[in-house]
């Protein structure tokens, strides 16, 4: 159904800080969005005094606060999350049905698969330090899925990618070497090849690439060059380029703000505030 949604909930003066994502939520709509799109990140500890106070005093939804407090010990987490979504009215019936289905699917998952979903989501949200911790827990913990070489290889690969996003090239290479033992997809070794191109000092056993055809290596080189070229005109570089065309004062202000944002993103990715 298209149209306009009326924002009824007030903006909270004291926001609700979401540690998992390093952001603050100010409105009921933002809280709904966070719950709906980040269900794997939400654990039992989400429903607590801090959230109740935010809903009651911050958003002015005292009735919802009372309801949650009353049912906190009696209802499942998924049911209480649904109560929040229903009362804020940001999602319609069909969307709530989908959320219920997702929660049911999460509940049916094994603890290992659930933790993997959480780790993947943290990675996707740029929370690399937290993602690294979750992937590491899966590798070290007593999860039956670990015995599956495909699952284990995937964990090493993800851990390697997480380290790479933090510019920890040697750690990334070590993880990918481990991943290559269980996963035989060429992407793993291509990633290692790229790391070697970015950081030539990183130690990667040469035998990893021993059976790769020279034509495939040439193709990886070409692909790497393309990615590097693309990076020059997209993403952060493009954000900065916008300011390079402005006058001196605006350029300085804009770039300062951009650097502040990048620093913030970096801090968040490391798990800081």
């Amino acid at each position: 159904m298209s149209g306009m949604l009326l924002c009824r909930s007030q903006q909270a003066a004291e926001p609700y800080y979401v540690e998992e994502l390093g952001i603050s939520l100010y409105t009921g709509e933002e809280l709904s969005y966070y719950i709906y799109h980040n269900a794997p990140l939400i654990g039992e500890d989400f429903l607590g005094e801090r959230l109740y106070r935010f809903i009651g005093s911050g958003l002015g939804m005292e009735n919802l606060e009372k309801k949650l407090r009353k049912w906190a010990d009696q209802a499942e987490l998924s049911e209480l999350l649904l109560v929040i979504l229903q009362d804020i009215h940001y999602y319609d019936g069909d969307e709530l049905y989908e959320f219920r289905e997702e929660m049911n699917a999460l509940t049916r998952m094994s603890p290992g698969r659930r933790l993997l979903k959480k780790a993947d989501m943290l990675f996707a949200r740029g929370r690399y330090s937290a993602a690294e911790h979750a992937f590491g827990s899966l590798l070290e913990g007593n999860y039956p899925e670990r015995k599956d070489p495909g699952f284990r290889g995937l964990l090493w690969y993800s851990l390697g990618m997480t380290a790479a996003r933090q510019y920890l090239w040697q750690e990334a290479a070590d993880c990918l070497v481990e991943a290559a033992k269980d996963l035989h997809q060429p992407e793993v070794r291509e990633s290692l090849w790229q790391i070697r191109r970015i950081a030539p000092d990183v130690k990667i056993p040469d035998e990893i690439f021993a059976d790769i055809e020279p034509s495939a290596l040439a193709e990886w080189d070409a692909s790497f060059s393309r990615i590097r070229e693309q990076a020059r005109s997209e993403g952060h570089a493009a954000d900065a380029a916008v300011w390079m065309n402005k006058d001196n004062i605006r350029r300085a202000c804009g770039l300062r703000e951009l650097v502040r944002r990048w620093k913030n993103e970096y801090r968040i990715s490391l798990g800081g505030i």
Partner: protein
Amino acid sequence: MAGLIMGIDLGDDYSQVSCWNPGTETAEALTVTEDESSCLISSVICKKKTEDVWYVGEEAYRRALLNEGVMVDKLIKLARRDGSATIEGVKYTASELLYRFVNELMKMTRERFGGDGVESLVFTVQSLEGSFADLLVEIAGRCGVPRGCVHIMTHAETFLFYVLSQQRDVWANACCMFDLTEEGLHYYEMRVIRGRRPQIAEAWHEKQEDGFDLSVLDTESGRHMGDLILVSCARRLLARKVFSSVFLTGRGFVTTDWAPDFLTYVCQKRKVFAGQHVFASGAACAAADQLRETSAYPFTFLCEGRIESTVSVNARWGGRSEKVVLAEAGTNWYEARSSVELIPDGTDTLEFQIQPASSPRTDKVRVNLDEFPRRPNKTTRIEVIVAFNAENSMTVRVRDLGFGELFMSSGKTIRKDFLLS
């Protein structure tokens, strides 16, 4: 002691002040002569030579005639033009002079009625422009009246307040008013359209081309000619309509004995009132009404200064579609400013419904939101601000608020102006 509840009529020729008496529930005019026969205060100001002492009204004329000071007239016109006047080599802006004039009026009112400050103040002027209204609010502020206590209305609005504050038989049918001043002859007409909830109180006003300079009334032949002109106007304007009452106001009607034929004509089966404080008293009635929780005037006012159509948007909440009214027909346009926060869901067009109070049709106007950054559905919160520059001129501003820290605001604002028919 309670604060004053004041109405000030600012005219180019003269101004008037009325105060609401909560005891008698009536508006009382500020008289400026010892015998309390006149309430017209000439809109002139005079600065005493070499001293920072200012006089207004007849006293200003007297001081200027005695060569004790320098006088400036046409204060309202000067202020509307954003003009200035030089007195003793010092340049005074029109707004400064108007402030001094209004301040003197306030002093005179306090001397006459007492009162601790001003609780509610309504300025009434012939026509309302945004910049002049802003100036009056600023002047009131300098005189110690807070923004929230000041309202600006047109003469048509305060005419409606005045008439509707009278006994019901005065406005059972249509009413009209002839306002004869140095500025010319203005004709006002009002009626209440029944059978609707709320009822509509409608007024319109027209400056008559066949007005005349009041100086013609100085001679016998001039008075006769003036009488003839008024009769001719009355025949044309009052023909084939049923009027309960006719009001005569303005400096030209301080006395009415110069227009016997006109009086004979208008008095036929109608009540006729001649008085000098219609607008100021209407403004005082309006000022008192502003303080009530529920208006004593349960009408939708349609006249100069009031919005003709209700402006709304449809928005969903809790699965239901709601009509969110941003400006109600009959609201004073200067004060009709409102905002609402919305989230577009599957659309990048904001649609407003425009529903004229006097007609069942609904028009639609749209604002395209595709200038805002592309984001996932339902993650752009917008603030919609509706304001008016005149009765039929609406400005819509839509501000991108982003979606908290999940999607930062771009800081962009889309502005669009609409002329409402």
